[in-house]
């Protein structure tokens, strides 16, 4: 069985599956249950500065997007940082870390964007012997209205400044948690690096309104008829998270900066994808909040089985393996010509490929052949867009096959060599010398 032990910023954990800073890591009771269930580490729910406890709404904190069988596709929350007294959290963190030495325990922090409060809290948490800190620059709701969370994460200068304070006042590794609610994630990531961050973690939640109640016209979740944007997470945000992780992993300025991947991770496969895009480990929240802590067993077994099949003995064997394959559009191979091919034995004749292509794409799939209901690709029209594959309800019924020779659509001989847009004659900035 593959060894899932990971070392992230020198912090060891028996597997790369950490619970993200969120309700599941709010107190010792939950965290101990998580460790018993097998989680490799936790990021304790965000602590704020000492003082009157945080006040949460007393109505719904969560909204949801469901699939037809009420499968949770995405959650939205308006919960704030921990509402428990600081000293209680610190005492519990210390005890849990003492009892679970082999697990990673990171403390998430969020205090006002001033040097004093950061210096103070860093001094207060030192004694817990936690393994590191994560700076919550991500929460898009509530705290951001008070100048914290995402309102810091949206200003690279603030990120750099606070990160620098943290590096100055603690010897613990510093992870900067980034918000996706920005235009280009590379700037906050570069700022974190410039401030001395040991790692970034992403994504935090996406600003969102899950739905609007059409009887009351209140956004959901509704608090007495009003709603406020919350933070969206869960399977629905995974594609967004993968891209933002990849942007940082392949940026020349942040390449090599350790990343803790977060965003809709539900199964071992999701985790493996984040790791392949350069994450040293992953953090999970929504899946645990939907199914409970036991899901980590599937993640551990699944990742391990896949690694065994692939011959990987440690997680680092495939960390970042997909990064070199993420490139700019302009470098994609324009000589790579594919055509859809429909396996007539597998086809159940639903006709979705036909109507999708006919109505919205390239009119490249038949609906009738010789008076029979039959769906066949017309190579002369097919641009290889893959829409038919995506809408086909049958696994492996339609495949995209590479062709060579003359493309029946263009009538032009396909270039056997790799060639991209930068070399294309239609590109005014083409680097190929005009003949």
């Amino acid at each position, binding site marked *: 069985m593959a060894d899932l032990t990971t070392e992230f910023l020198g912090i060891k954990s028996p597997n790369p599956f950490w619970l993200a800073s969120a309700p599941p890591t709010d107190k010792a009771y939950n965290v101990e249950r998580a460790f018993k269930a097998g989680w490799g580490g936790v990021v304790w729910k965000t602590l704020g500065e000492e003082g009157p406890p945080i006040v949460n709404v007393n109505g719904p904190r969560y909204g949801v997007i469901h*699939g*037809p*069988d009420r499968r949770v596709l995405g959650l939205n929350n308006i919960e704030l940082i921990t509402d428990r007294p600081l000293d209680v959290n610190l005492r519990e963190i210390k005890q849990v870390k003492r009892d679970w030495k082999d697990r990673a325990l990171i403390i998430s922090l969020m205090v006002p964007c001033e040097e004093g409060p950061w210096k103070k809290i860093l001094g207060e948490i030192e004694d817990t012997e936690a393994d590191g800190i994560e700076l919550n620059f991500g929460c898009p709701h509530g705290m951001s209205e008070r100048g914290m969370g995402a309102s810091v994460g949206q200003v690279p200068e603030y990120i750099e400044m606070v990160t620098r304070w943290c590096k100055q006042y603690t010897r613990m590794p510093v992870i900067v948690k980034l918000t996706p609610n920005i235009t280009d994630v590379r700037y906050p990531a570069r700022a974190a690096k410039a401030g001395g961050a040991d790692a970034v973690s992403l994504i935090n939640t996406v600003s969102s309104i899950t739905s609007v109640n059409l009887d009351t016209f209140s956004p959901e979740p509704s608090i007495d008829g009003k709603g406020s944007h919350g933070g969206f997470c869960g399977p629905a945000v995974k594609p967004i998270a993968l891209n933002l992780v990849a942007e940082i992993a392949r940026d020349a300025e942040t390449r090599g900066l350790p990343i803790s991947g977060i965003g809709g991770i539900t199964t071992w496969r999701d985790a493996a994808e984040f790791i392949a895009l350069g994450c040293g480990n992953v953090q999970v929240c929504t899946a645990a909040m939907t199914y409970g802590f036991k899901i980590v067993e599937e993640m551990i077994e699944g990742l391990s089985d896949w690694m065994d099949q692939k011959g990987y003995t440690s997680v680092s064997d495939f960390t970042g393996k997909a990064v070199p394959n993420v490139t700019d559009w302009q470098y994609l191979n324009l000589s790579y010509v594919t055509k859809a091919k429909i396996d007539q034995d597998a086809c159940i*004749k*639903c*006709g979705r490929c036909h109507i999708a292509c006919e109505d919205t794409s390239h009119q490249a799939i038949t609906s009738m052949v010789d008076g029979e209901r039959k769906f066949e690709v017309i190579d002369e029209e097919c641009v290889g867009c893959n829409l038919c594959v995506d809408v086909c*309800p049958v696994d492996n019924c339609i495949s995209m096959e590479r062709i060579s020779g003359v493309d029946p659509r263009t009538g032009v001989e396909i270039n056997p060599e790799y060639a991209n847009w930068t070399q294309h004659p239609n590109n005014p900035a083409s680097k190929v010398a005009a003949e």
Partner: protein
Amino acid sequence: MAATDHERDVQANRLESSQYDRNFSDIHPALNRHEALVEADRCYFCYDAPCMNACPTGIDIPMFIRQISADNANGSAKTILSENILGGMCARVCPTETLCEEVCVRETSEGKPVKIGLLQRYATDHLMNNAEHPFSRAKETGKKIAVVGAGPGGLSCAHRLAMHGHDVTIFEAREKSGGLNEYGIAAYKSVDGFAQSELDFILQIGGITIENGKALGRDFTIAQLAKDHDAVFLGMGLAGVNALGLDGEDADGVVDAVDYIADLRQADDLSKLPVGRRIVVIGGGMTAIDAATQTKLLGAEEVTIAYRRGAENMNASEYEQEVAQTNGVTIRHWLQPRALQRDADGAISGIELEYTKQTNGKLTGTGETTTIAADQVFKAIGQTFDGAPLDDTIVLEKGRIKVDADRRTSMKGVWAGGDCIVGGEDLTVAAVEDGKLAAESIHATLNA
């Protein structure tokens, strides 16, 4: 046991009273909202969907299922009812396994079609329980149309005509309207008086008057009807029943299955309905299945369907055969009735059947016989059209009314549909389509 060795045993009250409710409860309980949403999600919204093409009334099935998915059950029902105003009953009685669900791509791919019938019921029940009648009448035209028979064909025709602004009078021979929806059909397919609820729903359109107890040929003639109305639709169904052609067919214990089912449907208390201990049903269609299954459910000990050909030749679908078998009915094939056996009082005690075989497409008896003890023998070998009330005014073909594609008969101003026409499929849904087509043709003719 030989046929003569037992006392005839036909009695009511064979079961504990609570058992009747259980035996005759809804065969396919309705889907709740969540079940409907999950099932609706299985629909692929096929292009030029095979299910839609298989529906005799051409309901846009992918669309109504999509409307269920979008939590618009009333809109879904409107999609259904706009093509088939009896969509509620059809959802219950259509042999979907040989129509829409047979050609569902999920049937071809995984053997588990989308449960179209149950989804249709979900939508139509939802509308009928929660909303107003979804259609309104066009400006009144002052045209008067007579409809003969308040069965599925007549009601469908009347509703469509009323929608177009015409005034309709339905003449129904029986005490209650609904035709076979009320008097035929197995009780467990239409519980809680659904046929009458649906009738009330249809009449909400307005402009339809029903005169019960008025029979063509007895209370009025076709000539009178044609004279007094702008158009006539005939949807009187099949009044006759095929005979076994055996001696003693009028003996005590020989039962017309159609009548028995009607009695059962009309019974206030099923425990009072006498039923034999041993029953043989002759036939292979839905009437045979319904009679056999329901007598078994009334407490008959042994129920045997004897059919003269093989299982694949039966008009009842494989699924319906399974319903009977699951309820404990024995189906025996390649047996034809040869003689009725009677006891000292002349009542039925059994039936002698001859084995059959098919050679060169022709069915012949082999000469070998078997006898089954029976307290009752049910005749379910098909119904016949009684043309006498038509006074030879209308051309028949193969014993039924001849119509063109618009359901127009040979007599000017007279249309027909349902089981009484040539090619009538003995299906509720086909009758509904006939009524709809005839109504559109009548409307076009009156407007021309």
